[in-house]
Every structure is written in structure tokens, then in C-alpha cells.
């Protein structure tokens, strides 16, 4: 399944497994995932609840470690990295976006956005300036001194995206970023992520909404801790398609299949 291109992939996972619990409660959240992500891809991951999507993102984001398998980040294994090295990679290279936004209630919008910069040793004032610039990109310039509870859901998630981008990460991991938003706000967020993608960032996004996969360049569906379908596999047979173009058709082919499987699973449970 490994798929080689000229430049080495940003992320390369081989037979990744993650076990939770022991004995009776033992369970594999990831059960042999192989995945290669090239720089600049916008991947949408779909799949039923509990199939291991969040676990996969956490491992890619170095918040969690796999039980088995190999993870190469920029061609280097992350297995033996110390806690502080992993933290430094999170600080400089990775931006997280969560479904529930996860802003710190006690800090205002500006300070929330500036937070990741604290861990790359940037002086306070510089941090605030950088955060302020980032907020302007998201048209939240005049909300800088609002507190998180004074924002709407869509605004809050835009603040969270600004925070994820403020340290200029090469990889953005978004776990159901629109899960708590209405459809209009969802599309606004997706437009923002599209913009970010166009600037050359790698984005991996988990979503439950098939409509949003049109923004992605590649759609993956997961089932029971494994990758079920991957639109990239379809492109192998064809001549190479420009990766940055949204693969609307391909995803639409994949999506119904995923839906069917999900329906099956629902019936089972």
C-alpha cells in the first residue's frame, strides 16, 4: 500500500496498531493502519464513531504512541523521541483543531491564539503581535479582547483555527472541526481550511459530514481500526491527478460505500 513519490512523504505509517485496556477489556482502536501522507495533501477521514479516527490523529500529532508499527515523520522514526522532543515537534510543526474548540476560558481571544508560541520561546509582545496578525486573517481583528464565552460557535472555531496556525505548523490535525457547528458556519470553517490548504499546508481532518469531503483532496474511510477505502488508491490506476484539486467525484464515489458500511454496523449494534 505504500506509495512512493519523488519527495519523501511527510507522514508514513506502517502497520500501526493501538491497544487500549488489558485482559477482558483489551481492544484495538487501531488495527493495522498503513498510510502515507504527502506534503500539501488535504485528507478527510470518515468513518463510524469508535472506529479509531481520533486515536489516529492523536498518534500522528504525537499526543499518543502506537502499541505497534512504525511512524515516520519527515522520514524519521518518532518512536524513541523523548517527551520534550515530542513536545517541541508539537509546538513547531503541528496544529490541533478540536471539535469542542478547547479555548482556555480564563484567557481572552488574543491570549488563546498566542498560547502555542509560548512554547517556542517567543517573547510575550512578539507573541501577541503574531496572534493579532493571525486573527486579522480570520476577520476576527476586532474580537481580540473578547472572552471565549462572548463568541458564537463559528467564531470560536475560527479562533481555534487561528491558534492552530499561529506557529506556522506544517501539519494541521482537525478532529471534527465542524461537529458542533451549524451548516452555514461549517462551510465558513471549511472555506478557511481550504485557504490554509492552498497556501501549501498539509491538513488531516476527521469529519462525519460527507458534504464537507468536497473540500479535501483525498478521502479516507475507516472501519474497526483499519483503513477501509482511500481515494488515493483509485488514482493509482489513473494517470497522476493534480493533488491539490478537490477530488469531488472520487470522494462521492467513496462516500456511499462508507455510508453503506456504516449502516451495516448500526444494524449490527
Amino acid at each position: 500500500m505504500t506509495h512512493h513519490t519523488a519527495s519523501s512523504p511527510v507522514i508514513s505509517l506502517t502497520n500501526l496498531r493501538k491497544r487500549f485496556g488489558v485482559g477482558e477489556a483489551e481492544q484495538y482502536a487501531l488495527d493495522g493502519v498503513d498510510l502515507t501522507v504527502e506534503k500539501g495533501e488535504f485528507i478527510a477521514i470518515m468513518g463510524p464513531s469508535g472506529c479509531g479516527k481520533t486515536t489516529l490523529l492523536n498518534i500522528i500529532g504525537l499526543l499518543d504512541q502506537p502499541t505497534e508499527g512504525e511512524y515516520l515523520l519527515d522520514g524519521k522514526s518518532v518512536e524513541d523521541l523523548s517527551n520534550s522532543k515530542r513536545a517541541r515537534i508539537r509546538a513547531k510543526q503541528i496544529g490541533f483543531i478540536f471539535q469542542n474548540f478547547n479555548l482556555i476560558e480564563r484567557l481572552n481571544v488574543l491570549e488563546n491564539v498566542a498560547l502555542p508560541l509560548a512554547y517556542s520561546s517567543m517573547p510575550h509582545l512578539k507573541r501577541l503581535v503574531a496572534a493579532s496578525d493571525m486573527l486579522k486573517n480570520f476577520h476576527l481583528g476586532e474580537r481580540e479582547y473578547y472572552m471565549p464565552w462572548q463568541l458564537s460557535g463559528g467564531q470560536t472555531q475560527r479562533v481555534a483555527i487561528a491558534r492552530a496556525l499561529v506557529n506556522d505548523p506544517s501539519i494541521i490535525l482537525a478532529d471534527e472541526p465542524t461537529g458542533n457547528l451549524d451548516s452555514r458556519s461549517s462551510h465558513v470553517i471549511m472555506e478557511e481550511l481550504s485557504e490554509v490548504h492552498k497556501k501549501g499546508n498539509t491538513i488531516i481532518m476527521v469529519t462525519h459530514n460527507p458534504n464537507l469531503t468536497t473540500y479535501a483532496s483525498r478521502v479516507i474511510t475507516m472501519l474497526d481500526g483499519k483503513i477501509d477505502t482511500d481515494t488515493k488508491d483509485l488514482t493509482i490506476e489513473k494517470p497522476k491527478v493534480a493533488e491539490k484539486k478537490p477530488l469531488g467525484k472520487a470522494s462521492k464515489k467513496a462516500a456511499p460505500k462508507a455510508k453503506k458500511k456504516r449502516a451495516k454496523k448500526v444494524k449490527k449494534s
Partner: protein
Amino acid sequence: MRPLLLEHYRTAKQSLVRARMRTALTMTGVAIGVASITTILALSNGITNIINDQVKELGSTVAVIRPVSKQSSLQDLANPTPQNSYTTSPLTERDVESIYELKDVQAVAPLMTLSGSVRKAGASPERSSILATTPDFADISKLKMSDGQFIDSVTLEDTAVIGTQLAVDLFGTEEAIGKTFLIRGQSFTVIGVMKRQNDPINYNNIDLDSAAIISLESGKLFNSGVAQIQQINVKAKPGVAMADFKQKITNLLRANHDHERDVAVYTGTSIAKPTSRLFSVISTVMSLIAGISLLVGGIGIMNIMLVSISERTREIGLRKAVGASNRTIILQFMIEALIISVIGGFAGFIGGYVIAFGISMFLTYDPAFSWAIVGWASALSVGVGVLFGLYPAIRASSKDPIESLRRYH
């Protein structure tokens, strides 16, 4: 690294200010502990300073010999009555005589304090003490007479020298020469009145202003002819090396006492070690209280930090997700604990001095300032912060970021 430290400070300040009330209460716990310690040290340093000044004034030629007091036991604490004066002192007249024979010695004065009251028909002063000693005492202590003379080898046994205050208390006047009073029922005639000293606390452990001094011979008569010597003051000849002198006396006493280490020779500032047994009992008890309040203050810090950390579980998870390492998280919460303990400690230090000055209004001396006290207060504050902040901080750092972020889903 520095921007991060500043960030920790900022974060800590924010979270402490947000929970003002509990922050203040926690700080109070530490403050009480540090205040007690500061009070004790300020007062005991005050005493030490006074005695040091006196020793300095005496010059560097005086050595003092005292029995080695046994370590104060728990039983002594329970019984605050000093028992030293009732037990037999290992110092004897033979010691005094043999010290006299050393060639470097200029003067020797044994001190024998007697229990019992000083009275006169119609007047019995509350505060008075009786000291039996030899004529050399005046020389060693540089005593000045305001009237009359000090006891000497030819004065009669029933004569006494008294302090100014005792003269006033007994006779209503400082002009007391020739007047008589009773010591333990025995009649004594005043032959001299000492100049006012204003040193109620001194290395002789006697307030000379309200003391009656009689000859050692008279003192022995009150004690079945035995000299009960609590202390021996020795003055060396000018130019004698004191370390050597001290060693010679020590060797001599060891030989006299069958090599028992029951007495000790002090020179220089070590003479000034607080000698009051009552004081040492009080300061032991106060140190105990201080220790307990510091412990309670520390537990308060630990408690509040654990609460704060559990309230901020999600924040910790998020900070890790955006790049905080375990070490960074530990540092963040350690700084928070340290801010509590250091501000509490500072307030306690100030408060301790306020209390010490308050107490000193009822005492005859002032509390003293010293950098050592500042050092102790700082060390204790920082120590409590580190000791009791470490566990919560480690707990915070070991929180699983995934669990922490998941909890509020």
C-alpha cells in the same frame, strides 16, 4: 527559556488572582508559620546581640566556665520550672583554686547564686537575686560603684553590696550605705551600692541592678558550707592567646573531673549563647508551633494546587497539545506554588517583626534584625513551596493529554 518563565509567572498570577480568596487563605497559612519563626529569631537575636555587646565591652580576655547542661528532654518541657539550681553543679572550689594557679590567669570569680528572698521590715522586693562571689568579680565584670566599696578579702562576712534598684526597693533611696537588711533571715549591712547597669540580660544570668552580692564564704554558710558554683569567670593576663588559654583551662578541668565532660569553657561570642533555660524552653515550644504551622501551610498549598490542577485538567491537556512538555508543566505549577509560598512568607516575615516588636514592649530588650533571619524566612518559604508544590506539579504533568481533552467532550 526566559520568555517561558515569564509566561509561567503570568499564567500563575492570572490563576491566583482569579481565585483570590483561596489564594489569600493559603498564603495566610504559610505566613503564620514564617511569622512565628521570624518572631522567635528576632527576639533571640535581640538577646544574643545584647550579650555580644557586653562581651565585646568586657574585652577579649574573659573566659566563662559553665556546667554542660543535659539535652533538654521532653520531661523538661512538661515541667517549665528550671531545675538546674537544685541539682549539684560539677564546678567546685578546687576548680577555682587550680585555675588561679595557672600562670596566664589574672582574675577568677566563681558565681554562686542563692535561692531565697531579700527582705527588710516592711519591704520585700519582688525581683531580687543573691549572688555569692569573690572580689575578683568586680574586676572581671568592670563593675563601677556609685557609693561605698565592693566586697574584698578583709570585709566582714555579714556585709553586702547591692544594686541601685534593690537599694531603692529596700530603702526607698540609693543612699543605702550602713543600712541593714535580711537575706534568708540573716542580717547583712550594705557596704557598697553599684552603679546602674541596665543589663537585665547578661552572660552572668543575673540582673545586677536588683542583686545583693555577698562573699563566697557567706554564701557557703547558707549551703552547709559547700560552694554551689554555677559559673566561673576567668580573666586572662593581657596579651594571652585565648584559644590556648581556653585549652589549658579545659585540660585542667578534665583532669580535675576524672575526664568527665561535664563542664565547658566558652570564650568570645560563644559566651553569649542564650543561657536562660526558660528562654530555651519557650523558644523550643515556639519553634514547634512554627514548624507545625509551616507544615499546615504547606499542606494548604498542596491541597489548593491539587484542586487547581483538577479544575484545569482540560487546560493542561491543551497546553500539551500545543507544545508543552512534561517539564514545562511541572515548572508552571511549581512557579504557582512558589508564588503562594513566597508572598505568604514575605507577609509572614513582616508580620513576625510586628509581633516581635509588640512582644518586646513587655520585655527589657528589642528584637534584632539580621540577614540570617531574612535568609531563614526566605529558605523556609521557598522550601515549603518546593516541597509541597512538587507533588501536585508532577501530578499535573503526568496527566494524559488525551484523557484531559476528552473529559469535557
